[in-house]
C-alpha cells in the first residue's frame, strides 16, 4: 500500500494555519530566511535546476531551465503566479490558497530573491473567492510583519505582491492569455516566440509559475537538493547516448475525482501507477475501471489495459498522454465514453478564446459532431473499406479484411486533427488549446471506438461492457507507438 507523502500539504490540516502566527509556529518563512542567509540568488537558481523540478501547471517544463532563459540585464522583471486553476478535474491549488496561503508567499519570496524580482502578480481564478480572501489577508499580514514590502526583514529585498481575480475564462490559465488578461486586455494567448521569460507582462521578462511549483521552492531550499531528488524516479532519455537523466522528482498533488471511494487531493511521490493511485483514493467505486483521464480533461484517456502506466511526466508522455495538471478522473464500467467526450467538448467549445481560425470554428464543430453521434444521428455508410491494423507481417498496415465506414467518426478524427494533429504533434493554432481539444477527441474515439460505433448503429447512446468497449492495446495505433521508459540505475 502506497503512503501519502505530505510535504506541501504537511500542515494543511493545522487549524488556522492560514494566519501568520500559526504559520510562523510551524517554521513558516524559515526556508526563505535560510535562502537569504545561506545562499546567493544564483545558488538558488542552480538548486532549482539541479532539483529537476518540473512545472506543475500543465506543460511540465523544467523550472530551472525556464529561469535560465530570463535575460539578466532587462529590468524590471516580473513574477506571475498562475492560480487560475480551471482545468476540469483539477483542484489542488485551491487548497493551498484557502488553507495555507503563506506557503505560496514564501515560495514567491524565494523565487523573487533568486531572480531579482520586485513585483509579483497572482492571477487567481475568479471563482476562488475564499482563496482570494485568504491570500489577500495573508499578504496583508506578511506586509505587517515585514515579510513583504520594502527592505524585507532588513535584507534589502523589496517584494510587492498584487492579486488579480480572473473573470471566468479557462484560456486565461494559458500563460500568455493570463498576461494579456492581467494587462487589462481580452484574454487571448500571444504568439510565441517571444516567450514570457523574454517578453511577458508589460513586454518585460516574466516568470510564469503555477502555485504548486512555487510551493515546492521552500522545501528544495530548506531540505536541500539531495533530499528532494530522492523522491520520484529519474529516467534516462534513450535518444541520447549515454541516456540523459530525465528527472521526475518531488511530490505531486494528485486530484482524484470520478468513480473512487475517497475522491480528493493526495500528495504522493511522482511515479506511482494509475492502479496504485486508485487504491490510495479508497479504491474504485464500481466493478471495473473503464477509463482514466490522467492529467486534466485535455489529456488523452487511458484504458483499463494501461493502468500500470506510471503517473509522472515522462512515462505519460511516452504513453502518448500527459500528466498535465495532475487532475485524475476515474470512470467505471457504467460510464459512456461518447457522453464523456460530449461533456468535455462542450467545455472546450465554450472556452475557445476564438482568436485563431482552426480552434474558433473547429472546436464547436467537433462538439456538434459528438453531439450528433450522442443524439443517435451519427452517420454510417452502406459500403465498406479495407481495414487497417496489425497486418500479416506484424506491422501496421492493410489487414486484408474489410470494415464498415462510420462517416462521422472519420469526420470527427479529421476535423480534430485539422485543429491540431495528434499523431505528428503539429498544430495550426496560436496556443496549445488546439491540441487540448483534439487530444481527447481523437484518443477517446480511437481507444473506445466500439462504443462510438455501437452508439451510431443503435441510434442512441449505448454503453458496452469494458472489454467490448475498449480497443485492445495491440490494435491501438497510439499504443503501438508508445515507448516504455528506461529507469536510470
Amino acid at each position, binding site marked *: 500500500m502506497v503512503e501519502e507523502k505530505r510535504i506541501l500539504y504537511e500542515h494543511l490540516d493545522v487549524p488556522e494555519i492560514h494566519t501568520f502566527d500559526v504559520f510562523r509556529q510551524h517554521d513558516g518563512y524559515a526556508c526563505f530566511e535560510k535562502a537569504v542567509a545561506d545562499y546567493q540568488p544564483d545558488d538558488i537558481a542552480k538548486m532549482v535546476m539541479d532539483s529537476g523540478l518540473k512545472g506543475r501547471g500543465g506543460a511540465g517544463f523544467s523550472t530551472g531551465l525556464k529561469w535560465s532563459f530570463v535575460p539578466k540585464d532587462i529590468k524590471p522583471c516580473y513574477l506571475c503566479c498562475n492560480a487560475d486553476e480551471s482545468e476540469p478535474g483539477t483542484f489542488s491549488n485551491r487548497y493551498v490558497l484557502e488553507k495555507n496561503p503563506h506557503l505560496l508567499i514564501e515560495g514567491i519570496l524565494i523565487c523573487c530573491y533568486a531572480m531579482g524580482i520586485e513585483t509579483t502578480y497572482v492571477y487567481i481564478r475568479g471563482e476562488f473567492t475564499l482563496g482570494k480572501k485568504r491570500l489577500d489577508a495573508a499578504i496583508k499580514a506578511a506586509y505587517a510583519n515585514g515579510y513583504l514590502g520594502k527592505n524585507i526583514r532588513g535584507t534589502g529585498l523589496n517584494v510587492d505582491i498584487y492579486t488579480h481575480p480572473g473573470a471566468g475564462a479557462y484560456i486565461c490559465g494559458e500563460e500568455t492569455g493570463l498576461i494579456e488578461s492581467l494587462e487589462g486586455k481580452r484574454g487571448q494567448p500571444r504568439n510565441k516566440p517571444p516567450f514570457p521569460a523574454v517578453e511577458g507582462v508589460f513586454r518585460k521578462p516574466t516568470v510564469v509559475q503555477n502555485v504548486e511549483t512555487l510551493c515546492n521552492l521552500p522545501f528544495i531550499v530548506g531540505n536541500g537538493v539531495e533530499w528532494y531528488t530522492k523522491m520520484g524516479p529519474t529516467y534516462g532519455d534513450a535518444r541520447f547516448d549515454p541516456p540523459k537523466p530525465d528527472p521526475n522528482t518531488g511530490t505531486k498533488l494528485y486530484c482524484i475525482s470520478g468513480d473512487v471511494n475517497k475522491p480528493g487531493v493526495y500528495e504522493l511521490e511522482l511515479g506511482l501507477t494509475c492502479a496504485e493511485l486508485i487504491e490510495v483514493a479508497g479504491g474504485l467505486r464500481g466493478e471495473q475501471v473503464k477509463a482514466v483521464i490522467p492529467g486534466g480533461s485535455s489529456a488523452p484517456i487511458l484504458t483499463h489495459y494501461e493502468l500500470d502506466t506510471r503517473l509522472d511526466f515522462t512515462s505519460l508522455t511516452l504513453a502518448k498522454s500527459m500528466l498535465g495538471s495532475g487532475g485524475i478522473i476515474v470512470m467505471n464500467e457504467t460510464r459512456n465514453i461518447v457522453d464523456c467526450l460530449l461533456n468535455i467538448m462542450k467545455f472546450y467549445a465554450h472556452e475557445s478564446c476564438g482568436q485563431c481560425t482552426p480552434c474558433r470554428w473547429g472546436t464547436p464543430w467537433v462538439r456538434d459532431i459528438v453531439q450528433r453521434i450522442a443524439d443517435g444521428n451519427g452517420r454510417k455508410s452502406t459500403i465498406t473499406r479495407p481495414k487497417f491494423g496489425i497486418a500479416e507481417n506484424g506491422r501496421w498496415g492493410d489487414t486484408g479484411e474489410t470494415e464498415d465506414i462510420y462517416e462521422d467518426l472519420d469526420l470527427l478524427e479529421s476535423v480534430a486533427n485539422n485543429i491540431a494533429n495528434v499523431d505528428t504533434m503539429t498544430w495550426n493554432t*496560436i496556443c496549445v488549446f488546439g491540441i487540448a481539444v483534439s487530444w481527447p477527441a481523437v484518443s477517446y474515439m480511437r481507444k473506445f471506438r466500439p462504443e462510438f460505433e455501437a452508439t451510431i448503429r443503435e441510434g442512441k447512446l449505448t454503453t458496452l461492457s469494458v472489454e467490448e468497449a475498449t480497443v485492445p492495446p495491440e490494435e491501438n495505433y497510439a499504443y503501438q507507438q508508445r515507448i516504455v521508459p528506461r529507469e536510470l540505475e
Partner: protein
Amino acid sequence: MAFIKLNDLEVEVEDGTNVVEAARLHGIEVPHYCYHPGLSRPANCRMCLVEPHVFFPPAGAIVPDRQLATGCTTVLRTAPPNRKLDGKYDFIVYTDSPRVKKAREDILEFLLVHHPLDCPVCDQAGECDLQDFTYRHGHDKSRYLEVKNVPPKKDLGPDVLLYSTRCIVCTRCIRFCQEVSGSNELGLIHRGSHDEIDIPRSHDGMPLQLLDNKLAGNVVDICPVGALISKDFLFKSRPWFMKQEKSVCAGCSVGCNITVEYKEDGVYRLKPRFHEEINQHWMCDDGRLGYGYVNSDDRLQLPMKRVDGEFQPTHWADALTQITEKLSEADAEKVVVIGSAQGTNEDNYVLQQFAHEVLKTEHLGLFGALPGEEHTFPQFTIEADKNPNTAGARKMLSNGTPVLEGEALWKKVSEADIVYLVSGAPERSLEAEEKAVLESVDFLIVQDVLPSEVTALADVVLPGTTFAEKDGTFTNSKGWVQRIRKTVDAPGEARIDWEIIQQLARQLGGEMNYHFAGEISLAISENVSGYAEATHQNIGDSGVKLAE
C-alpha cells in the same frame, strides 16, 4: 540582403522582409487574411502558413521544421556565417509543399463553416479574398452539416454597415481603429465561435459610440470579405463592371494616391492606393466620399451669359466671342486673372501663359476652396488646405511675378474692370468682402464646375471640369508632383479648363498649340524652376518629389 531559398527559387530580399512579402515580390501568392502590411501582425487567421526547413543536428541534414510557421511573422534576416543552411542560404522556406497546401485547405474549410456564402448578393463578390483563396486553394465541398451561426447585421456608423455573418474575425478593422485612427471604436464581443465585431453599446444595445471618424472608410477597404460594407457603395455595382484609373484625391493638400472606379455614367467610388511616403494604405472619408459633386445633376453643362440680369445658356462660340471682345478692348492694367488651386498644374500654367503673353497683365491671383480644419491621427493627417494643388498652382501662376492672394488679391480685384476667375471648388461660398468686391467688377468671367455664389455674380459662366475628367498633375504640400487621369467624360458641353483658356488665347491672337496635358508638362519642365524632372513620363504612378 538575405539570400533565401523560396520554393525552387533562389532570391535575395531585404533584411526584415517577411515571407508573405518576399513571396509577393517574386510572384508567389501566400494567401492571408489578418496580415496587412500597414497593421500589426496578430497571426490569427493561420492562412499564411509556410514550411521553413531547418538544420537538424542528429540527422545532419536539412529537414522540414516540425511546425509550420506563419509567413507574416516569419521575418527573413541574414544569418551569421556559421548558421547558413547548405553553406549559403540564410533561410529555406516552402510555400507550396504538400503540408502547406493541406493546411491551407483545412483553414479555408474552417473559415467557411459558418460563412453564409451569400456571394450573389454580397458587394465584395469579385474582389473577395475568401472567394479568391477558396477558389485557388480550397475545397469545393463543405463537410459541415450543422446549423450556421447567424449573428445580426449592424449599423456601425454613418457610412459603414457590418454583415456579421460574413466576418472571418481577422481583426484588421479593430487594429486599424487602434493603430491608425487611434479612435478605438471597434472591438470584439462574445467569445469563440460567437465572436462578433461591435461598437461600444449600453446593456440594452444602444450604441454608445459610433464608428464615426474621418478615417472610418478604410476599414471597408481592408476587410478581406464583405463584412464591412460602405453604405455609399452598397448594391451600386459589381466590381468587375467598373473601370479603374490611378489618380490623386482632390480633397486636400495631402494628395492621397487613389484609384478612381467608374463606369460610363459616372464615378462610383474612390479607393486609396499605396504610396509609402504620402498616404501609405489610407485615405480620409472627406476625400473618399467627396466625389459626389462629379456626378451631380447640377453640374454646369453649357456656357451661360447674363441677359437682362438673368442667366441664359448659350453656345461656346458666342460665350468666347463675348469674352474676347471685352478683353481686346480692355486696359491690361485693369484685367485680373485668377487661377485655381483646384486646377492642375497644366491648367494654371496655360492660364499664366495666357495672362502674360496674350493679355499682358501682371495681375495673377490664386483662388480655391476655403481652408478647413486639420485632423491628426496617430498615423495620418488630414490637412487644413482643402485644395489639392495650392503649391503647384502658386508656382505655375507666379512665373516671374508673385501671385496675389488674400487681401492683396481682393484689393486688385476692386480696382479691376475685367476679372477672369477659374474656380472649380465645389460648394465655395463667398465671404462678405469677397462678395462685395466681386460684385463691383464690370465684367466677371467665371469658369467653374457647379453653380455657386461665385458663378451667381458672373457675367459669363464657362463650364469646366473636375479632377475626374482630365489629365494633369497636382503638387501636394510636401512637394510631390503626382498624376491625375481622366476617367469619365465631362458632362454636356463642359470642357477641359486649359483647352478653354487656350481657345481664348488663340482667339485673341496668341500662339498656343497644346494637344495633350503631357505637352504642357514638358513646357512646365522647361520653364518652371524645380519642375525639370516633373514630366508625365517621369511622374508615372508614384509621383516625383521636387527638390527642396
